[in-house]
């Protein structure tokens, strides 16, 4: 049985990307935005489920709308990376579609954390939560690297550079958000003893 492409991508990124770019698909924006929409549904519903422990439709829809900024930022970051790849063999929408096909590590991490929090009484220490971020982070880096090599047709050096750029922008956006919303500056000052 053929596994779905999203799952094949996390198991064998380079090989799967080769198969996907060989498919005779005409990229459209509608098609490109399907996976970002799916990610918005996953994050918005999961956060609502975990926070409210209720899933009335209005709350879920509002959660999806509010948290849609996460895939939106990811699309923008993706466009920057794709735009930096000169001579790519495919259209921009098709590249966005293929980049987002690698969403599974982060989607599963989100859902596992929400599942543990909602359905078990096992307390997850903050250190464990933070350390567990390494798994999807490393996994996604490998997928993005494979995407740059195969889908964008970059040289190994250029692919490394674009992967670093993608991850740097992603983590900068993440920390900027955390910094803005959680009173991070006083915490840093306290940490350094200032």
């Amino acid at each position, binding site marked *: 049985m053929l596994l779905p492409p999203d799952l094949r991508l996390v198991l064998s990124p380079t090989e799967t990307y080769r198969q996907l770019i060989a498919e005779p698909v005409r990229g459209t924006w509608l098609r490109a935005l399907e996976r970002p929409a799916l990610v918005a549904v996953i994050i918005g519903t999961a956060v609502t489920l975990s926070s*409210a422990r209720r*899933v009335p439709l209005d709350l879920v829809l509002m959660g999806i709308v509010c948290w849609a900024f996460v895939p939106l930022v990811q699309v923008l970051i993706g466009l920057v990376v794709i735009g930096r790849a000169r001579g790519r063999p495919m259209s921009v929408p098709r590249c966005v579609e293929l980049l987002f096909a690698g969403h599974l590590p982060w989607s599963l991490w989100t859902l596992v954390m929400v599942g543990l929090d909602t*359905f078990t009484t096992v307390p997850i220490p903050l250190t464990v939560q933070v350390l567990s971020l390494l798994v999807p982070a490393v996994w996604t880096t490998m997928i993005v690297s494979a995407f740059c090599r195969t889908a964008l047709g970059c040289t190994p050096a250029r692919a490394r550079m674009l992967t670093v750029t993608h991850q740097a922008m992603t983590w900068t956006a993440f920390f900027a958000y955390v910094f803005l919303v959680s009173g991070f500056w006083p915490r840093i000052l*306290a940490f350094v003893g200032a």
Partner: protein
Amino acid sequence: MSVARILAICGLAAGLAMGAITDTVPPRKPITIEGYQVLSGDFHVHAFVGDGGIPPWMLQRHATHVGLDVIAITNHNQTLAGRLGRAAAQPSTGPLVLVGEEITGRDYHLIGVGIERPINWDQPARGAIADVHAQGGVAIAAHPMHGFDGYDPVALADLDGVEVAHRDTLSSAMSLQFDEFYRRALTQNPEVAAIGSSDFHTSGPMGLCRTYLLVREPNEAGVIQAIRDGRTVGRCESGRLRGRPELVRLLEPYRDALAPPDESLAQTLALLLVWLSLVALAIVGPRS
């Protein structure tokens, strides 16, 4: 479309439908003791955009569903979310929504409730408490375990309340630190209010830990006055009541009536179905 994808979408739809059907408001009877009305409150609630999961304009309705009469929206170092929540709330029909802030300083986190403008966090706790009072609000020491207990004796004496029941007190080691801080605060101010707060972010439920207030009038002024006078008792889940012994004795007969509503089996199944469907959808993706 593959069978797995169709099943995942149907599962999600069924879970959401089941969630909607079982989404009831728990029945509650008003409790009055010696002329005081007993309210349930949660004074440490974070909202989106912030590090909370639910937008402020949805929090009042949510509070109804978890059996709360009053909440304070307390995002870090800002009052915008609280003001948005209050503006969207319907005071005549639902729980009270108060504007608050979690003043996130270097060695203390302080909840200001009943304020309008953000308080400067870059000052000692004593100054932040004075600024909260200057705006007519009340100041509550937030999760005052080690690292967040930077209150000198004057600041301790000025505090209106201390979180004695908090999700961190569900761990016995942390609970000892909260108890020790509360004892220190009592030596400086014997009437300091015992507060129960869920510190609600993205991990529910809101009202997991809550405060029972004995109020003269069920409005913002009545709530603020009850905290100022220390007419409160804190509690986590269905655990023991924490606070001044005479108040705990008064509320003890109403323990069960005041307990947070339980999640029904059907509600849990709905959540589980939604979660499993999301996992399946993530794996199968939108296309083959």
